[in-house]
């Protein structure tokens, strides 16, 4: 592993809000999850947007922590104009008044988008999936499912998982044989939570936790991990860089990332212009060609090169045995489960 990639992972792990440059006046600041996601966004949205409108754009990155946004909104000193937010955080933040309620007349026709992508305070920008990724140099026969992810006899070595309850709980139940459709029903019960933690107990000594999306491809390529949960786009990008990493789509958990406008930004109109631009089918097509995340604008799908369709979380084959992340469930129970997860992980 190179020093540079290690370091970028470090910065990511720290919460890279610090890296955000000072904001000049006429410019808008767009914050995303950074790394390869941001690279694709620069190419598909940021640069063409500046070219088309003359509005300069300052890219920044963070790890999804809502605290910074809350601090800005509370102190009425909002310097972020557009942020990429995961669905559960968007719903919670919308209720708590962190985000502007969107006027879709300024963005586009709601009917053009996947229905779940349109919410009160946000518009989905891409669909991503948490999948099993493995190093094909180390494993010849791929793990068929999350159940095999648990099989340390067949696949000895460390596994990476995202540190946190979200996705980890679902994965544990999938690995324990719960059908995707029943996962949230089971998880809503006390017994279901116990069942998930019991399953996680089995794998605990073999888990190495990751926090930033850039970490799994690095750790896999370096040989520290044999397999890991990972965001599909990050793995696909690593493949393009020549790393022999592979994806298992079976049991993937997909969710949308959204654009939202922090409440009280003085540059709201420019922010709308950016979101409108980034939601256009032609631009989403460029994005999905850069990184293997699915477009939310239905009109973008026919524009895509058919060759890359199988790489996207939204392709029918990949959706077959996949689980849609239940935003409502995580809004309601997230804090409680995260706290329990912390208690469990720390022991």
């Amino acid at each position, binding site marked *: 592993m190179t020093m540079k990639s290690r370091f970028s992972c*470090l910065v990511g792990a720290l919460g890279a809000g610090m890296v955000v440059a000072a904001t000049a006046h006429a410019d808008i600041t767009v914050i995303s999850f950074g790394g390869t996601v941001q690279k694709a966004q620069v190419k598909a949205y940021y640069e063409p947007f500046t070219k088309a409108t003359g509005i300069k754009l300052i890219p920044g990155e963070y790890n999804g*922590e809502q*605290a910074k946004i809350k601090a800005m909104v509370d102190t009425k000193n909002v310097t972020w104009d557009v942020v990429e937010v995961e669905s559960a955080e968007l719903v919670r933040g919308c209720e708590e*008044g962190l985000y502007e309620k969107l006027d879709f007349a300024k963005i586009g026709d709601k009917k053009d988008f996947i229905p779940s992508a349109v919410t009160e305070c946000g518009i989905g920008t891409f669909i991503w999936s948490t999948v099993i990724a493995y190093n094909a140099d180390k494993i010849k026969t791929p793990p068929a499912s999350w159940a095999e992810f648990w099989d340390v006899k067949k696949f000895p070595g460390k596994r990476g998982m995202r540190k946190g309850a979200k996705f980890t709980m679902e994965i544990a139940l999938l690995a324990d044989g719960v059908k995707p459709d029943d996962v949230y029903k089971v998880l809503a019960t006390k017994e279901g939570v116990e069942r998930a933690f019991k399953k996680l107990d089995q794998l605990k000594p073999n888990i190495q*936790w990751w926090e930033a999306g850039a970490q799994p491809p690095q750790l896999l390529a370096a040989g*520290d991990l044999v397999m890991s949960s990972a965001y599909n786009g990050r793995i696909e990008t690593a493949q393009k860089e020549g790393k022999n990493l592979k994806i298992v789509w079976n049991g993937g958990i997909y969710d949308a990332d959204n654009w939202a406008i922090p409440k009280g930004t003085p540059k709201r109109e420019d922010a709308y212009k950016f979101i409108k631009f980034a939601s256009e089918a032609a631009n989403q097509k460029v994005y999905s060609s850069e990184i293997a995340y699915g477009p939310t604008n239905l009109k973008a799908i026919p524009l895509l090169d058919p060759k890359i369709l199988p790489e996207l979380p939204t392709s029918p084959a990949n959706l077959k045995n996949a689980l849609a992340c239940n935003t409502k469930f995580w809004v309601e129970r*997230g*804090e409680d489960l995260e706290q329990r997860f912390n*208690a469990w992980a720390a022991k």
Partner: protein
Amino acid sequence: MNTVEDAMKPPAGGREVPLKVRLRRAERARTLGYLALIAPLAIFVLLIFVWPLISLLQRSVDNPEVSAALPRTVAALHGWSGHELPGEPAFAALAADLEALKGTSELASAAKRVNMELIGFRSLLLGAAREMPLAAGKPAKDAMIELDERWGELATWQVLARNRASVTPYYLLTALDFAIDDTGAVINAPAERTIYRAILVRTLWMSVIVTFWCLLLGFPVAYLLATQPPKVANLLMILVLLPFWTSVLVRVAAWIVLLQNEGPLNTAMVRLGLIDAPVQLVFNWIGVYIAMVHILLPFTVLPLYSVMKGISPTLMRAALSLGCPPFASFWKVYFPQTLPGIGAGGLLVFILSMGYYITPALLGSPKEQMASYFVAFYTNETINWGMAAALSTILLVATLALYVIYARYFGPAKVR
């Protein structure tokens, strides 16, 4: 002729001013001068340190959400026994509150706050708000229970009533692994949720170990520095201080590179045949301790050095001349003189370790996370600043308690 008496007399024509008063006046100008000199720093400390500290302590018991969002309900619940469902006025008040605040962030904050204590309350409250106003002609109580049967449960109302006060022990209790049961009594939290007592003990224990190693490794270095001629000592001192010139982040990154499975250390050990396969040195306790000791070492070396510099070398000679063998002389005569340095250096490292966050976060597994990690977790990820403040408060109190113990047993008055 001028005499002392003349000088002490008040100026002619003036009223009799006693000498003490005149002295005080003369001193007052000087005192004001001193105050003016320290005023900028005092104000700075007050603004940057004391005030945030107080607001932090306050936040750990602050509970404004429910009383701000549901004022009518809070008033209606005043004097409620808590043993049976409240009457119609309370339901009507709640309905009025919900209608007034429908869709606002105040309501969401209150929902979020109560959801911490009763899971599901968030959707219950926000769901009810969406149905407002209630259809006319029906008692609010029936209409609400019809909306969701949980409104007919005693626990729902108890948790609301518990949070009508603007201060709550909830965060502090949770941060100590206590919970409040339905009757309002304080009980131990269920075993699967307990974490913070263990974290506090772990934080203390890791700090003890780091302090121990820092002292063990720092003592000989400080001794060497104190006994070398100035030229050599200056060079060595620069080497000791060198780590201060690089950021903690860079040093942590360097340790990751050095200690990782395919890093130089593991590779070298495998090549030399010392080990068969790479040993995990990072993302577990080994890496955390190595990096923390490395980063904190100068904080023990410097106080020890300054204390050792002040110890007269003839003391050791005196002990030898009195027939005490070299090591015993060191132990009985030199070592006791270094205790103030050991105390100061140890305390410094211990207190710094207690607040360590970045190093364990980057180099450790979840098993090495200390209290600050959870403060950061609640601050950044769940925006539960009450919990963050409560954990910080407990950390602060623990640190202060240890300092008091230190001052009591090892303070300057105790060590000669």
